[in-house]
């Protein structure tokens, strides 16, 4: 591919992001603006922004790559990513909005009336955020290398720099506009090239090289345990993602939080048809990309591979732009929510503290990413979901629905989940992809139940520590807002 195409596409996306960010600067004034966009964002904007933020490198590049490698087994990834939002809608969306808290640590502290719980939750949230940013940067490195031939670190540094500039200049208000724009950019960037490719293939009557069911690498198909464990991680991990949760505070009330989630589900469903199509077309018409170890770059390479010429270059530029939109939007969403947590705990919640925290939140994962190699993108993001499902998910679900949760139980459960799942991740990294047994490679199926069990048992053992404010809190979480707040 022509390197200038990749560089031009990245420059254009960065510029558009920065311009929208600066536009947002003029309308964000107070600390409240910075954190949650003052809760006046319209449902469609908000839903597009949620979609834009959620669809990360794993969705844009990783899903298609994994489908190319593992076929129908990998279809559980997009299904799980979408169904995770259904779980979020069912169990978390409205009560969390009604809690009125800004961040997950705010929620756990208020629910359990404990500063220690807040600290533990903050540490877990920051770990999740950093773990999640690292694959985005790996994706950026991969995209820069595959499309421009520049060294990998250029992509990582560029993404972190653009994110820092946008977040520091405008907080969540401008981020909301940026993210909403990026959802539609990502959708277009995937949809137009694949439709064009399908048209060209149908028009020229090119015969398929291989059947969809043929595995290009000859790797063994995933077992039942792997698929179930993956689904547990994705279904329960989504509702603990810090950058997803903070979005719900921008809805005016609980019922609109639900409506927003419904729109998000529609947006995600439409989006995931396209990575699936890329994977399928890749399997049938370009299976050699899997053998050369470039599966994660499938989406970026397919237009050049199957269309070629100037049209191929233009389509490639569009896909590269979409890929960078994915890295930028997810990273900036995570940086905003991490900065919210770090600045409140370390810098007293001022706007200046928020800016300082934003830079810290973005630079630390840059260091981690430059020291580690890239695994399959969708796989490494899947592990982050397992981690949130084993830590934040139990404390949210039990906190919202069970009066008996205590501060001691919450801490015991989160620590158990973090140690078990974190240990499995470290062991998997040490043993390498070949030497890791399945139960360690996909730990969610046992770490999530363990975290829940410890949380419930420890709460039962310390039942005298149930906060006195519980009646009032449960009423607030679950009853509809008074008409004043719902009339718009």
């Amino acid at each position, binding site marked *: 591919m022509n390197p200038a195409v990749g560089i031009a596409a990245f420059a254009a996306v960065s510029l558009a992001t920065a311009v929208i960010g600066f536009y947002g600067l003029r309308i964000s004034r107070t600390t409240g603006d910075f954190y949650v966009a003052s809760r006046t964002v319209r449902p469609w904007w908000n839903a597009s922004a949620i979609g834009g933020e959620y669809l990360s490198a794993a969705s844009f590049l990783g899903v298609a790559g994994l489908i190319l490698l593992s076929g129908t087994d990998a279809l559980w990834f997009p299904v799980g990513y979408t169904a995770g939002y259904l779980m979020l809608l069912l169990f978390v969306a409205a009560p969390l909005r009604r809690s009125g808290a800004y961040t997950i640590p705010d929620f756990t502290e208020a629910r359990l009336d404990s500063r220690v719980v807040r600290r533990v939750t903050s540490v877990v949230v920051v770990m999740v955020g950093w773990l999640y940013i690292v694959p985005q940067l790996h994706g950026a490195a991969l995209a820069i290398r595959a499309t421009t031939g520049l060294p990998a670190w250029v992509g990582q540094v560029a993404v972190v720099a653009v994110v820092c500039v946008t977040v520091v200049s405008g907080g969540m208000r401008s981020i909301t506009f940026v993210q909403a724009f990026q959802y539609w950019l990502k959708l277009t960037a995937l949809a137009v090239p694949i439709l064009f490719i399908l048209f060209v293939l149908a028009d020229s009557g090119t015969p398929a090289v291989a059947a969809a069911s043929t595995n290009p690498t000859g790797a063994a198909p995933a077992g039942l345990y792997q698929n179930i464990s993956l689904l547990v991680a994705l279904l329960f991990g989504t509702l603990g993602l810090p950058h997803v949760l903070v979005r719900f505070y921008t809805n005016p009330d609980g019922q609109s939080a639900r409506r927003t989630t419904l729109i998000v589900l529609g947006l995600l469903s439409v989006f995931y048809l396209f990575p699936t199509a890329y994977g399928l077309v890749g399997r049938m018409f370009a299976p050699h990309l899997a053998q050369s170890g470039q599966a994660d770059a499938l989406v970026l390479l397919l237009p050049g591979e199957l269309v070629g010429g100037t049209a191929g270059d233009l389509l490639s530029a569009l896909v590269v732009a979409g890929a960078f939109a994915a890295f930028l939007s997810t990273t900036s969403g995570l940086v905003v929510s991490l900065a919210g947590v770090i600045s*409140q705990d370390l810098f007293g919640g001022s706007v200046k503290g928020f800016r300082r925290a934003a830079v810290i939140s973005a630079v630390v994962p840059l260091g981690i990413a430059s020291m580690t190699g890239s695994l399959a993108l969708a796989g490494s993001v899947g592990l982050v979901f397992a981690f949130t499902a084993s830590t934040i998910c139990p404390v949210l679900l039990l906190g919202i629905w069970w009066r008996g949760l205590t501060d001691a139980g919450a801490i015991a459960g989160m620590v158990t989940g973090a140690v078990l799942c974190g240990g499995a991740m470290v062991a998997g990294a040490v043993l390498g992809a070949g030497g890791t047994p399945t139960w360690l490679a996909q730990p969610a199926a046992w770490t999530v139940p363990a975290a829940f069990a410890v949380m419930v048992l420890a709460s039962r053992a310390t039942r005298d520590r149930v906060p006195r404010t519980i009646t009032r809190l449960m009423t607030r979480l679950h009853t509809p807002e008074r008409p004043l707040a719902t009339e718009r």
Partner: protein
Amino acid sequence: MTRVRVTAPRRVDQSRAAAGSGTAGGSALPGGRPPADAREAAEESDAGQVFVRSLIRSQLRLAVVVAAGFLLILAAFPLMLGIVPGLADSTLAGLPFDWVLLGAGIYPVIGLSAWLFIRTAARNEARYRDLLGDK
């Protein structure tokens, strides 16, 4: 801007304020609401709590039923492909059937479950409002 001020959290939870926590703009569970009024008093009375508990139970039951139903359908998809002979190898509009089913067929189920949930959850809340005599 007025609406922003009305809906933004401004009051720090009293228990936290008493405990001496001073996080600016921090968690404010009871925030964003006018001070205790007749309705809040009704909700915190013993009779009001009966309604609240029943609302929470029906919302939880609804969420669990929808989630279980969805998971059953999700599990039925691969089961069906495994059990019905020849189904996985058949094609639909030129595409392999198992790909169509798993790659596209599940999304309408997700959307339908979500829509059903939202409708029923709103209905539960409307019933609660009626019980509390609040329009």
